[in-house]
């Protein structure tokens, strides 16, 4: 998949140079991020894997980072682009802190800033190859939103990226409630992450869960989920299938 536009002209070398300036495909990628609103704030989960194509090359990548006092950013997609975004946000939060005037950037402001960045890059045919999840709590208000690599942006009570959209969100649509306690929220996220672990080949069994409340943002230590691989459906997957 490339983002080049075929133009018939004699500028072969110049086009090649211009092309080398724009994003064509991702190299080291992270897989799904899943996040939900719960009673006291936001919970977000992601694993710590970085795939190099089909190889699971890196197993200690933190794909969720705190932004300022009130927000947390999770990303799937190209890891180097995520790191670039963190640098932009670093600059943003630094300037915001330097004002030292009692005003601070909340999750809504960060989300909109990221939407502008992602959309403008897309317009230049040089996208940051990420799907971002931005959550946080400020002044008692919970915020959870998502921005894609083409600048599509929205807020919701539960969001997921990549495979999470197909595997986790149906679970969340059935089982999410406004007043989930912390323990119930974690159990719900672990259920989603377990399904992703079984079914997404880029997922690894080493995940972190982050919690955002009015008090602040904490990211848990990495841990693993208990898995069971002896389900009959796993040992004999084609039993009862058409044509078997």
């Amino acid at each position, binding site marked *: 998949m490339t983002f080049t536009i075929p133009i018939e002209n004699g500028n072969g070398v110049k086009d090649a140079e211009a092309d080398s300036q724009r994003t064509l495909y991702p190299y080291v990628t992270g897989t799904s991020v899943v996040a939900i609103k719960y009673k006291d704030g936001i919970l977000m989960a992601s694993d710590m894997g970085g795939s190099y194509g089909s190889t699971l090359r890196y197993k200690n990548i933190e794909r969720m980072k705190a932004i300022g006092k009130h927000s947390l950013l999770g990303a799937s997609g190209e890891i180097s682009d995520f790191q670039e975004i963190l640098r932009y946000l670093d600059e943003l939060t630094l300037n915001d802190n330097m*004002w030292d*005037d*009692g005003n601070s*950037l*909340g999750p*809504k*402001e960060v989300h*909109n800033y990221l939407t*502008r960045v992602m959309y403008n890059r897309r317009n230049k045919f040089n996208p940051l190859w990420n799907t971002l999840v931005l959550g946080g709590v400020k002044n008692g208000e919970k915020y959870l939103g998502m921005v894609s690599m083409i600048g599509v942006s929205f807020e919701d009570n539960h969001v997921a990226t990549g495979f999470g959209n197909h595997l986790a969100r149906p679970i969340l649509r059935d089982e999410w409630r406004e007043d989930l306690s912390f323990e119930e929220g974690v159990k719900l996220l672990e259920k989603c992450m377990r399904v992703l672990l079984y079914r997404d080949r880029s997922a690894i069994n080493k995940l972190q869960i982050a919690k955002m409340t009015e008090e602040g943002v904490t990211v848990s230590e990495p841990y693993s989920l208990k898995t069971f691989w002896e389900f009959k459906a796993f040992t004999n997957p084609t039993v009862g299938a058409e044509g078997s």
Partner: protein
Amino acid sequence: MFRNQYDTDVTTWSPTGRLFQVEYAMEAVKQGSAAIGLRSRSHVVLACVNKAQSELSSHQRKIFKVDDHIGVAIAGLTADGRVLSRYMRSESINHSFTYESPLPVGRLVVHLADKAQVCTQRSWKRPYGVGLLVGGLDESGAHLYYNCPSGNYFEYQAFAIGSRSQAAKTYLERRFESFGDSSREDLIKDAILAVRETLQGETLKSSLCTVAILGVDEPFHFLDQEAIQKVIDTFEKVPEEEEGEDEAGEGEAEAAAAAPAEQGGAGAGDQDVAPMEM
């Protein structure tokens, strides 16, 4: 006059460390018709005197909406004021677009002040000849700032600028301690009373003043003539002879005391504190 030697351009210091061009710009603010601002914890009221060139013409607009949560009243060269208002609107709307959140007024006044400072340090520019009373909201509530041509800005509970503003300032000085907890209606009434002070004897009519208000749950808007007249009617009915004379007497005494002091200061030349220290 003594100070004419060093006042040719803005990038020349006087031997006593003053920039006369900047001080002259601040004189221009004093020539403009009065503008008044006051704030409570949750609201800011801006009011000004409508001055028309002649009976045939309309009056100049001196209060501008910058955003739903920020308004500005100007005194001095109104053309400069319009340009700066346009800049403020632009900054505000750009911030709203990028962050979907209102620009904190404290940050806007710093941008404005930095812009004014540039004009005090370029030989091919001149300072803006307008003083701005900026009222607006941020996370900590309502604020009122005064931006002057020198590039300085100050936060105020209440302030007045322009010609005969000293009378209004005296009135405000007596009452400012109660403004913080004032109700919206009392704040408007105080603003109109302060405007009355600057008229010094002329009967106060709603056609002579413009009033605008903004608050935590109230976007910036102008009060219409009827609303202003209603407020005027509440205090014009009170037996005005004693109250009016007392205030007018005090106002005149203050103005009389202030005027020779200012003239004396100017005459003495470089000995005084420069007006931009105000």
